[in-house]
Structure formats: structure tokens, C-alpha cells
């Protein structure tokens, strides 16, 4: 009934008091076209004051970039189009067809995201009561992004009426957030603040932190009813001596210390017959004389006096400074500071866990990139500089498969064995054609494989171009596993972790439990003896090298999924891979795992200390590793005895 009355009121009041929507829009036309946050507030208020459905529709269309204007007349309309060539123009007020025009005669009005946020915030009330769940959700989203005191009551009404459990939860949280900021009742605010004390989200901290904003005042000036945080000693981080002195000056408890330039200009202004206040102009090159002259001038009332011997620290020492909360309610600030203490303790712990997870993830990526090398370099002792290019070949195989098969899940499942096949073949070919002839000549192997790596990179550039190619993960790998608001890790990284774990197990199995593994170990330890036992070293070398290369190919698919596919992809990982194998200990899969773990965690740890320069973090890590290698030249897990091979 009440609402009906209200609507009736509007209905009758509208033609008398308010302008029509068309008039208002016409009046503000230039600013609507320009669409700036600076000019939008009065326009939105005017249009909302119209109160008709068409006005709400207009604001919604404005927010959705669905308003256009006719280039010739400047009239603002909404449009309907079937073929995107001719457009039917709809009057914003009456909803009737104005005319039909071609695309080139009209232009879309595109509000920026700041303005869209404002419009969204203005439309919140209507959206919250919408029968559609998506619109209500959009309403709450808009409200959280730009909270206003006027949103509190409609939100509470909507919360009461909400049937959807999930949405009710979101609304309840938003309601508590708004309560903290805008409610008049201290009890309600304190209760809402306490309800957030287990909430680790950035929004919760973003709501609570501003409650504790404070300003530092001179003790004598603090009003009696102020909400005092506590005394502040000058010279601390919160209040430097300079800032404290500025406060004194602002309160007229001290005179500002003149700068050298100020002294000079006052001295210059008072030159009389080659003297200043009785001091000869020629002596003015001496700093002490200048100050004496200045003080003499100050005595004569021509300048502001100051004490040249006192430091700022002395000057502020006699005064007390107090930090005062901007928020006037002590109960609220106490609750907020308690809640934040609890949150921060948990956030600190969660950050540590998150960093550790990042470390694990990076370690698994390095491990996956290096595990192929652990076989070819670690077991066979072939320095294969083209290992990175096998990773790249695997990634490009994934890209090509995705071009042919559009279903991302199927294409990835297919890409993994295909990448293995392609790089296995490439590895075998390289072993047969080049490396076989260079066994036990590490320097030549290094040079030859380095040359191959450059050639492979250029071939990739010629085929695929130098622009990065996308390798898109299937939908079920999108997003993150969210443990809490701070600890989250993307599913792709988890998938890489699982993949590297699988390969660790697979390789351990192959090397320790299969005939191929036994023969490989035999050939690497003593090829002649192995040959005498009926093992064909040529064949074993070829297969082992192929296996290592094939695994690099699969690593390429995984790395391409989480980053990008370029011809330089392999080069980015080759140094890290060698480092991983060498640090971990050559010739041992467990060593590679240890190496990857150490490098991954070290990198993350250094990044944590020095967040502003990731490149520097990598440099520090390499320095650390150089030192580490000095003390443990055989790596973390060193082979002993005959297995060491020397």
C-alpha cells in the first residue's frame, strides 16, 4: 500500500516538479557523450529523480554500453539491430521507433569502467529486488565495489527476502561490511567487526583497516572527547622529527627554521652601504657570519628569529604528540584493532604457506623441465644444449594439435603422447646423426648441440613466427584451488605438480625395475663390460637419449599451458635445468628432485625478501649456487663408490 502511494506520488509529482527524461538527457548531452566520472554524479542524480521505469532503463543501457547517438542531431537513443548494418533507433522515453539509420550515421556511447561502476552503484537498489538471481548478484557486486550509506537499507530488505542460500551468504557478508562503515548503532558495528575476525579476504582487511586510520596531533590541541590511540614519540617511523616540527610550526608553537636560500634572500634585501646589520659584505662568504648577521636582523625585527644551535630534535623534545583515531567510537576502534590482530596473525601464517606452495610449484616446474636432462646429462653424461629446444618442440606440438582439434580436453590428452613421440623421434635422430660420433668428447658435444639448438630455434621462428602462440588449457584447469583467501594455487600448477610426480615415479620404475633401466645403468657405468654381457650399447644409448628427449617434450606441453609458446621457450629453461641437475647431483633422479626443490624454494625466498626486482632475485640465487657448488662440487646427493664412475 505504502509503495503504491509512493508510486502515485511520483506519478503526480513528476509533470509538475521534475523535468522529463528527454529534457534532462538533452541538457546533459555533451557530458553523457564524454562520459567522465567528474561530471556524471549530477546527471545520474537528475535522471534518478525522474523516477520512471524509462529512466532506470536509460541508466542500465548507459552502463551496458547500449546507448547510441545520432551523429547529425546528437540525439541519444537506444537501438535494435538484426544485421549490424541498419539500426532501428528507439526513443529513450517512450520506447517508440524514431527512425532507421545506417551504422555510419550513429555512434555508440562508451562509458569507462569508473563511470560504469558509478552507474552500477546507482542502480543497486533496483537490482537487489530483481526477480532474476543474476541481476541480484550483479547488484551485490556493484554494491561491494562502491559501497554507499544509502545501500544499507535496501540491502537489508533484499537479504531478508533472499531465498538462494549462496547469494544470501554473499549478501550477508556485504551487509556486515556496510554495517561497519555506515550503521549508526555502535553495538551493531562492533558485532559486525567481530564477525570478520576470522575472515582473511582482502575486502575484510580493506574494510577494517580504514577504521584505524589516525592522525598525529600536538597533545595540547587534542579535544577532550577524542578517541585517542596513544602517545607518539618524535623520531620514530610514525613521526619523524621534521614532521613533528612542522606540526609545531602549524600550531604556531615554533617559528620555522629559515633555509639557506631564505637567509640569503633576507640578507640581500638588507644590504646597506656594503654592510648587513653591521657586518661587512666581504665577510659574508663565511656561513657563521651570515647567521650572525641574520640574527642581528632578527633582533631588529627585520626577520624571524631562530636558534641556530638547537637541532630539530631538541626543539620538539618539549612537546607531546598523540595519535588520534579519525573514527570517534572507541568501542569500534578497539574491536577493529582486535579483529585485525587476529586476521593479521592468520594472514602472516597463510602467506608463509602460500609462499611455500609457490616454491613447491616452481620446484615441480623446474623438475619437469630438468628430468629429461637428468637422464641424458645425469645418466649418459651427454651435455645436450638442445634440451630446451626439445621442450619447445613439445610445446609447439601441443599448439599444432590444438589447431586441428578444437576441443581443449581432447587435444591436450592427445598432445601429451604426440609430443613424446615427436621429441622421442627428434632425440633418436640427433643421437644417431650427431651425438653417437661424439661420445666422450664433451666439448665437441656441447658445441654441436648448441649449434643444433640455434638452428631449431630459427626453424621454429620461420614456421610459427616470433609472436607467442597460445596453448589454451581446458576449462577444468581454469581458476585456482582456494584454500583460504590468501592461500590459493592455480589448477594448472597443481596439474604440473602431479605430472612431475608421475614422471618421478615412472623414471624411478624404469631405471630400477625394468630391463631397459638395468641395461642403461650398466652401459653408463661400463660400456665395454656391458657389451661383453650381450647388451647392445648403441641401442641402449639411442633409447635412453630418446626417452630423455621425449620427457622434455611432455614437459613442453605442460610449460606451454602455464606460460606461453615461443621459439625462445626452451632457452628460458636450459640454464635452470642444468643448474637443477648439477646442484642436485649428477646421475641421480633423487638428486634432480632435491636440486629442483632447493632452487625453487630459494628463488621464492629471495623474491620474498626483494619483491621489487625479480631479476635480481634470480641473480642472487645464481650467486648462492656458485658458492654452494664450491662446498659441494658433486651436488646435494653425490654418488659414491663405483657408481660415481671415476
Amino acid at each position, binding site marked *: 500500500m505504502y509503495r503504491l502511494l509512493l508510486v502515485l506520488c511520483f506519478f503526480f509529482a513528476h509533470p509538475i516538479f521534475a523535468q522529463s527524461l528527454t529534457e534532462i538527457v538533452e541538457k546533459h548531452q555533451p557530458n553523457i557523450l564524454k*562520459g*567522465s*566520472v*567528474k561530471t556524471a554524479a549530477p546527471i545520474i542524480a537528475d535522471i534518478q529523480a525522474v523516477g520512471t521505469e524509462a529512466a532506470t532503463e536509460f541508466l542500465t543501457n548507459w552502463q551496458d*554500453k547500449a546507448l547510441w547517438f545520432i551523429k547529425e542531431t546528437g540525439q541519444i537513443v537506444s537501438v535494435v539491430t538484426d544485421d549490424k548494418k541498419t539500426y532501428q533507433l528507439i526513443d529513450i522515453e517512450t520506447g517508440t521507433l524514431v527512425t532507421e539509420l545506417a551504422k555510419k550515421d550513429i*555512434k555508440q556511447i*562508451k*562509458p*569507462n*569502467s*569508473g*563511470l560504469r*561502476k558509478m552507474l552500477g552503484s546507482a542502480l543497486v537498489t533496483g537490482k537487489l529486488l530483481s526477480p532474476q538471481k543474476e541481476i541480484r548478484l550483479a547488484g551485490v557486486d556493484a554494491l561491494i*565495489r562502491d559501497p554507499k550509506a544509502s545501500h544499507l537499507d535496501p540491502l537489508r530488505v533484499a537479504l531478508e527476502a533472499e531465498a538462494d542460500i549462496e547469494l544470501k551468504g554473499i549478501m550477508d557478508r556485504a551487509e556486515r561490511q556496510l554495517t561497519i562503515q555506515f550503521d549508526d548503532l555502535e553495538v551493531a558495528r562492533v558485532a559486525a567487526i567481530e564477525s570478520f575476525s576470522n575472515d582473511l579476504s*582482502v575486502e575484510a*582487511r*580493506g*574494510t577494517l*583497516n*580504514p577504521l584505524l586510520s589516525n592522525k598525529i596531533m600536538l597533545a595540547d590541541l587534542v579535544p577532550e572527547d577524542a578517541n585517542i590511540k596513544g602517545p607518539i614519540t618524535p623520531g620514530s617511523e610514525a613521526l619523524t622529527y621534521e614532521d613533528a616540527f612542522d606540526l609545531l610550526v602549524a600550531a604556531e608553537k615554533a617559528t620555522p627554521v629559515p633555509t639557506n636560500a631564505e637567509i640569503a634572500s633576507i640578507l640581500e634585501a638588507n644590504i646597506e652601504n656594503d654592510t648587513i646589520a653591521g657586518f661587512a659584505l666581504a665577510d659574508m662568504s663565511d656561513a657563521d657570519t651570515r647567521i650572525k648577521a641574520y640574527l642581528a636582523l632578527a633582533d631588529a625585527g627585520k626577520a624571524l628569529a631562530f636558534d641556530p644551535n638547537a637541532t630539530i630534535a631538541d626543539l620538539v623534545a618539549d612537546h607531546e604528540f598523540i595519535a588520534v583515531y579519525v573514527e570517534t567510537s572507541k568501542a569500534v576502534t578497539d574491536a577493529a584493532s582486535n579483529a585485525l590482530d587476529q586476521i593479521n596473525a592468520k594472514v602472516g601464517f597463510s602467506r608463509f604457506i*602460500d*609462499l611455500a606452495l*609457490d616454491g613447491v*610449484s*616452481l620446484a615441480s*616446474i623446474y623438475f619437469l623441465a630438468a628430468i629429461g636432462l637428468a637422464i641424458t646429462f645425469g645418466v649418459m653424461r651427454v651435455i645436450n644444449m638442445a634440451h630446451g629446444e626439445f621442450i619447445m618442440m613439445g610445446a609447439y606440438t601441443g599448439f599444432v594439435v590444438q589447431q586441428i582439434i578444437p576441443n581443449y580436453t581432447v587435444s591436450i590428452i592427445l598432445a601429451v603422447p604426440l609430443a613424446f613421440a615427436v621429441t622421442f623421434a627428434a632425440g633418436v635422430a640427433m643421437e644417431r646423426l650427431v651425438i653417437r660420433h661424439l661420445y666422450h668428447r664433451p666439448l665437441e658435444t656441447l658445441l654441436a648441440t648448441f649449434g643444433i639448438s640455434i638452428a631449431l630455434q630459427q626453424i621454429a*621462428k620461420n614456421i610459427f*613466427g*616470433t*609472436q*607467442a*602462440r*597460445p596453448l*589454451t588449457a581446458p576449462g577444468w584447469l*581454469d*581458476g*585456482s584451488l582456494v584454500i583460504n583467501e590468501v592461500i*590459493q*594455487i*592455480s*589448477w*594448472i*600448477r597443481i596439474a604440473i605438480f602431479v605430472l612431475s610426480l608421475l614422471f618421478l615415479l615412472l623414471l624411478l620404475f624404469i631405471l630400477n625395475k625394468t630391463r631397459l633401466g638395468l641395461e642403461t645403468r650398466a652401459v653408463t657405468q661400463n660400456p665395454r663390460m656391458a657389451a661383453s654381457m650381450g647388451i647392445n650399447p648403441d641401442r641402449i644409448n639411442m633409447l635412453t637419449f630418446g626417452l630423455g628427449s621425449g620427457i622434455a617434450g611432455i614437459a613442453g606441453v605442460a*610449460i606451454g599451458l*602455464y*606460460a*606461453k609458446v*615461443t621459439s*625462445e*621457450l626452451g632457452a*628460458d629453461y636450459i640454464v635452470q635445468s642444468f643448474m637443477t641437475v648439477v646442484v642436485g647431483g649428477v646421475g641421480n633422479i633423487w638428486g634432480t628432485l632435491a636440486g629442483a626443490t632447493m632452487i625453487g624454494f630459494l628463488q*621464492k625466498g629471495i*623474491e*620474498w625478501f626483494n*619483491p*621489487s*626486482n*625479480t*631479476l635480481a632475485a*634470480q641473480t642472487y640465487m645464481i650467486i648462492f649456487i656458485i658458492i654452494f657448488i664450491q662446498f659441494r662440487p658433486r651436488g646435494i646427493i653425490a654418488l659414491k663408490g663405483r657408481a660415481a664412475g671415476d
Partner: protein
Amino acid sequence: MKKLLLSSALIAASAGTAMAEIKVGILHSLSGTMAISETTLKDTMLMLIEQQNAKGGLLGEKLVPVVVDPASDWPLFAEKARELLTVHEVDVIFGNWTSVSRKSVLPVIEELNGLLFYPVQYEGEESSKNVFYTGAAPNQQAIPATDYYLEELGVEKFALLGTDYVYPRTTNKILEQYLKDSGIAADDIFVNYTPFGHSDWSKIVADVVALGEDGKKVGVISTINGDANIGFYKELAAAGVSADDIPVVAFSVGEEELAGLDTTNLVGHLAAWNYFQSADAEANTSFIDAWKDTMGAERVTNDPMEAHYIGFNMWVNAATAAGTTDVDAVRDAMYGQEFPNLTGGTAVMLPNHHLAKPVLIGEIQEDGQFDIISQTAEVPGDAWTDFLPESAVLKSDWKELGCGMFNTETNTCVQLKSNY
């Protein structure tokens, strides 16, 4: 004997044609890392020259392109520039992309008094007598984008993320000072540099998200270069950060870079340029049509292409006005040259060898194009930034002062050569 006759005839023929032709040097990498970007510019130049020849050439003579390939090898740029000027004796050069390649060409072009049109947005702090900078200076890209953040989006906390090389470092240095001057506290500016092609973004994205914990609106200004962008945007999306929560404005991501990429993760994020393909203007439509006719329907246009379009046409008009292609005469005729740019409005060549151009801010859409949401009036390019104390006193004016590095405090020309 026959051979000798033939060769002397060839020499005579080439000498004869040299008189009736105007040579235009094109110095863009056609192989190596930068090939993908620079080949497009070479094709743009060939198209423009062909169009000009169809209109009757220049000064009654035919324009002949001389294309060389510096192969993304910075020292080779200097060699190739020397070859263009001394062997081919070109009248003008259009070329370069990276700042390091431009720095490599500068001494050659100043020694031989050549003329170079440089079409890419760059870090400023340079003004050579022999170079016209048709791309954006920092005040034509970075500063307006920052203003947009401050005024329209209400950003209170800034993350300046960049790749570790000269352009991001110089730009961020200018921006940091500018933000401080605009009243942003030093604690509210987070700066991070990553290596080329960086892919491990989880920690950095987490750091950026955590910036919002004191309730302030966070915005990212990205000078991240090339491929590294992909991993960065992927990680942002994985962390559930939308452009409405934390917007990212990029200075090195354009249509060409977005072409063929999966843009779902990028929708709503921003880029600032002087030109977008989506600009609604007649000149732009016919430029895009001509480009697609020559190169294929799937090709896109971008900002450096527009810069070449303006630069080339200005050079043609200046040479026509001067009645010669002589470098000094053309240079004098260049000042004040006006040419309609593709986004509507007019570009003007200033005495500091930079253009006055509008600044556009676009939101990335699903189809890899940009929705232009802000377009300023023409902004005059500033060779020396006003926001760093050491360069605020410097001024470039080749027309009146004849100096590219003029100290306005001491009223002296610091130096003429740009070997800084």
C-alpha cells in the same frame, strides 16, 4: 668487350634512373626477434609508396623503396643505415622499432646528415636534429593513462610492473615522480621488474592483490614487454582478479600482439595508444580497407603503422613545399606540417621533432580489438619530460633555437649531437 659494353650500359641506365627517382630507405628487421612487428611496418611503407606513386609520385618523380634487413641485430642497424645513405644514397629513411636500435643508428645518421622517421612509442629524453619521432613520447601515452587512472577510475595505489630494460625503467622513473607529485605516497607505489619472457607470475600477482588490504583501489601500469604478458594475464585470471577490481593498463600491447591470442583473460583491461583500429573515422576506414586489400582480410592495423602513415605523408608534403628532397630544406619545411590523423583531428609536427597527437585509451574486447573509452585532444609531444628535475629544465627547439638539448635555466645549448 661485350661484357664491358653491357656493364657500362647498366651503369648509365642506373645513373639515368637515379636522376628520375627519389629513393626511400626502409630500415626494418625482416628476420630475428623483432621481425614479426617490423615486417608489418615494411609492408606499410611499401603500400604507402605505391599509393603515392599511383597519385603521380613526388615532385614529378617516382618514389623507389630501398629495403634492407638489419636482422634484429642492433649494431647491424648502424651498418645498414650507413649503407642506405652512402651506397644507395636514399633521401629519407623510415625505420627502427626498439630504442636500442635507434640509439645505434643515431651517430651514423647525424654524421651523414640523413633523415629518419621513427614510428614507435618510446621513453623520450632524446631529440636528434636528424630524427622525426612520430611515435608517442611518455607524455602522450604514459602520463594521460595515469591521469585516467587517477581521475576516472579513482586508483589510489599503483603497481608499476615492467620488463627490465631501458623503456620500462625510464617510463616508471617518470611515472613514480609524477605520482608523487600528484599526492600518492611512496608507500602506495609498488614497483617490480622482471626479465624478458618471464613466466612465473604467481608471487607478483599475489603481491599486487595484497596491495588492496588497506581498502584502497589498486591499479596496475604495465610496461611488460611481449610474451611475458601472456603468463601475467593468465595468472591474473587464475587468481580471479577481474578488470573491474584491479585494472591493468598496458603500453606495449596492441592489436598486432593480441591477434591470434586467446583474449578471454584480457577482456576489460586497458591499453593506451595514439591509434586503435576501431577508431571511427573515414580516413581510418579507407586505410584499413587498403591494408586488408594488400595484405589479406585477417590482418590488423596498429599504432606504429599510423605513425608511419602520418610521417610519410608529412614528408611528402614537406618535400613538395620545399620543392626538393634535400634534407635541410625538407627539415625546415617539416615544422608546422599538418596532416589529418586516422582517428580524426590533425597531427602537427612541432619544432622539437615530435608530433601533437590525441591519446586514446581502449578496453580490450573478446575479438582482440579495442573499445575506445577515452580520447583526448591533441597532446604536443615532449622530448624532455617535465617530471624529472634534471630534464625539466631542458627543451628541444630545432626551429628557433637550433638545439635539441637547450637548458632554459642557463640559456645555453648543452649539446647538438644526441650521443647521450
